[in-house]
């Protein structure tokens, strides 16, 4: 492995991960960083989402955001803050946070890890990649990514559940049901999650659908 690697923001992958314009630019994954989590997010247009609304409650990460370019409106615990380029926003775990671009071409650089613990690579990255490829029209690479995500954590239900979503959305009913059965076997809560998840609408009426 080389001692160092270089990449420009413009060279990072672009994965659209929601319907609100949020585009994920994987940084940790690009370099194979193991000591901390780091990603960038870009919004093409003002009004697009640039930080997903979440709390970091489960993984307990401290998170630092830096507005690289443009301007973002952060919502932090329901308070709105205007955050121009060159500004940091630090959130302790559990803090509700999210941001919408206030200018076209806004980029936010995010860094995170859990205090007092060796860093563990977040499981959501592989899933985001899979659905990112799917949204970019590359189903095959998406499927490879989701299979890799399952292989990394073969005993966790989330990988199978997301694989079931992926197969349902891509019209592979049998594969979707097989993955969902495995997820439910590992964690019965997957059944309830599947009932509420619109990704299963294409196969919900199938007699073999387990939820």
């Amino acid at each position: 492995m080389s001692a160092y690697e270089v990449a420009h923001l413009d060279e990072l992958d672009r994965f659209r991960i929601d319907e609100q314009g949020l585009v994920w630019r994987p940084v940790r994954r690009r370099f194979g960083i193991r000591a901390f989590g780091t990603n960038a997010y870009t919004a093409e247009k003002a009004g697009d989402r640039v930080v997903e609304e979440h709390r970091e409650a489960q993984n307990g990460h401290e998170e630092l955001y830096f507005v690289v370019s443009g301007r973002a409106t952060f919502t932090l615990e329901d308070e709105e803050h205007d955050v121009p380029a060159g500004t940091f926003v630090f959130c302790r775990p559990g803090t509700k946070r999210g941001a919408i671009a206030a200018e076209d071409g806004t980029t936010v650089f995010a860094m995170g890890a859990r205090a007092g613990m060796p860093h563990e690579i977040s499981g959501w990255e592989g899933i985001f990649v899979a659905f990112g490829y799917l949204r970019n029209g590359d189903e095959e690479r998406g499927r490879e990514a989701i299979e890799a995500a399952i292989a990394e954590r073969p005993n966790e239900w989330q990988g199978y559940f997301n694989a079931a979503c992926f197969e349902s959305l891509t019209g592979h009913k049998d594969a979707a049901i097989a993955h969902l059965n495995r997820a439910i076997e590992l964690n019965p809560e997957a059944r309830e999650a599947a009932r509420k998840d619109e990704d299963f609408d294409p196969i919900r009426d199938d007699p073999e659908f387990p939820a």
Partner: protein
Amino acid sequence: MSEPFRIASLSEIEVGGAPASARWSPVRMHFDISAFGVNAWTAREDGQAVIGEHTEDSGHEELYFVASGHATFTVAGDEIDAPTGTFVFVRDPKAKRKADAKAAGTTVIALGGTPGKAFEPMGWEQSARALRHWATGDFEEAVAELSALKDQHPEEPGLVYNLACAESRSGQTDEALAHLREAVELNDDFRELAEKDEDFDPIREDPRFASAVAGQAGAGRPGP
């Protein structure tokens, strides 16, 4: 309970330092982040070093991001042109790295941590805070602060080196020579730095300086 979030611009986090060096923004300390290391440096003038040449004895993987301006990195002997928006990831802690700003106002953010280990804050950050006294010339206060920190982190090379610098500036020649020798013994990189460092101009002509920089025993002690 700490506040759930805080916001600060780069310029609000800056700490005054020696005019000859880049402005340091101690981001981790400002926000009291305990999960990873993060700092930023902004060049005051063209050609200024924004990341001083070093290796990561800490074992850190380090990610550098050029947040504004334009820098030239040198990593493991290779020169890298790094305009705004460039990431430079240095995986190998032993790889020598440095960055010089091509233009004043260039900012580099540095992130670090050790794979497989919980992050621990490093003594050099606290010692670097004392650099604000360089702007005011209050070197005796710098010596007092750094000496107190050395009691907590006795073998932090950067701290011992900065203490030697402050002692040199405040006329405490014997102490400066002893601590310079100690710093060089802890980290050989300080040998070269001390040769060029203006902080040691007051003691450079002392016959004991050469042996202190060479890290030889006996330097810094009063002569026979």
